[in-house]
């Protein structure tokens, strides 16, 4: 699964977007891994992630979710994720995860050099790494930049281009605040890797006219 690999944005946006997630492998460390997965999520939750989720149970923005109950219900198998908006917090999470020695695979999606430095400070060397080589093929079918930036915050592609455009329109018409619109979008992303804060900031810029309808930043 490459669900967090192709998040779009410039370095200044990506600096506020880190996804910490765990994976188990069948026949190696998946069986009986529920306590470790729950502990992983408890550690992440302690540092106030902007989003959390699990493919099986959904994300914390769904109606009526109690986070403690959510964590207690995590079973073995499905990957769990938490999204953070700054590297200092990610550093603390990584250090605590190393201390906890859960034995499950831990990954971070984000700026690769920053994550490498984070590993160095924590006294570990990264094991494997993956880059995106961008979008190929019929690129003329892709939408404007800001729509793509929000769409790729959900790696499973659960947030349609049309819903993003609708939210943009509602924000411009002040039917919804950028915060409320971002939270509505977050509900679509089943596993919880969507970063509502990034989406909110982008919608705020659109509302203020700092991003033109052509999708190009006024500053650019």
């Amino acid at each position, binding site marked *: *699964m*490459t*669900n967090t*690999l*192709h998040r779009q944005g410039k370095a200044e946006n*990506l600096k506020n*977007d880190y996804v910490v997630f765990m*994976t188990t*492998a069948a026949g*190696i*460390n998946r069986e009986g891994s529920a306590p470790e997965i729950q502990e992983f999520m408890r550690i992440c939750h302690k540092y106030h992630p902007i989003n959390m989720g699990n*493919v*099986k149970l959904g994300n914390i923005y769904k109606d009526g979710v109690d986070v403690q109950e959510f964590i207690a219900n995590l079973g073995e198998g499905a*990957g769990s994720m938490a999204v953070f908006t700054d590297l200092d917090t990610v550093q603390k999470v*990584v250090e605590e*995860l190393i201390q906890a*020695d*859960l*034995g499950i*695979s*831990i*990954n*971070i*999606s984000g*700026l*690769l050099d920053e*994550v490498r430095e984070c*590993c160095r400070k924590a006294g*570990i*060397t*990264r*094991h*494997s*790494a*993956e*880059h*995106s*080589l*961008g*979008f*190929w*093929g*019929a690129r003329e079918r*892709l*939408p404007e930049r800001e729509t793509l930036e929000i*769409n790729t915050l959900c790696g*499973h*592609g659960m*947030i*349609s*281009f*049309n*819903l993003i455009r*609708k*939210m943009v329109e509602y924000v411009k018409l002040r039917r919804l605040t950028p915060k409320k619109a971002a939270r*509505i979008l977050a*509900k*679509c992303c*089943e*596993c919880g890797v969507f970063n509502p804060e990034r989406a909110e900031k982008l919608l705020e810029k659109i509302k203020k006219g700092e991003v033109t309808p052509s999708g190009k930043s006024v500053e650019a």
Partner: protein
Amino acid sequence: MEIDKEKCVGCGNCHAVCTMGTISLDEDGKSIVNQDQCVECSVCYRFLKDERYWPWMVRAIRRLLSVFRLGYLADVDVCPTGALTPPVLEWPRSLRAMFSDPTTIHPGTGLYGRGTEEIKSNDVTGRLRKGEAGLVVEMGRPGIGAFLWDIEKVAMALARLNADFETKNPVTQLMTDTGTGKIKDEVLKEKVLSAIIEIKVKLERIPEFLQALAKVQNEVDTVISVGVASRCLPDGSIPHEEWVRKAGYTLSLNGKTNLGLGRPLFKETEA
């Protein structure tokens, strides 16, 4: 997905939510799904909360409002009458949900959704080893979707270079012959939100495979998200970077890092 016309009040909320944009208003003023294009992701069903209103009541209110030239604007995240109805899917259509709905466990991998573990568990599986790279070719992403006939074109182009397709990958499992990349005829007309072709190559062959991909990309009517991964060297550097640059491509600033905290750690000497 299907829409119960007895219940639908034509509010149009599901139109924008549909990942493929396949829902529209029919001649009768009620919503309809283009079944050829629907990928059975079920986002509309999960996202739109069923308000359980009586359809006759909503229709009556709308008619009344229209007399005063007022409109009916439902909240964006509701289906007022619960008209969306997930059908029981039979093969080969069921394949659409396997690839498009992340809440569905794929029978071929035992994992939720279309993906595989790739580097995420590489610290314990040793899937990618020293001197190897993983090429991850995701067809249909972002947001366009892909028919299996297009996925087959790319798989066959890569197979011509003797690609080592990942056996635990759901697309590989649809192939009749991994030597040719041919996919079963019975599924070629199916459309999915996205599907990942995953191969393992020697680092020095990265340029060759990217060149093949660059050529075949013009033959498909969808987008392709391309990724490349490898096991880091003892100093933490990434060996595939050099080969991607040699091939003339730009690497993303962001990406995925496996921290190596899984246990038991895979040791290559044991392999």
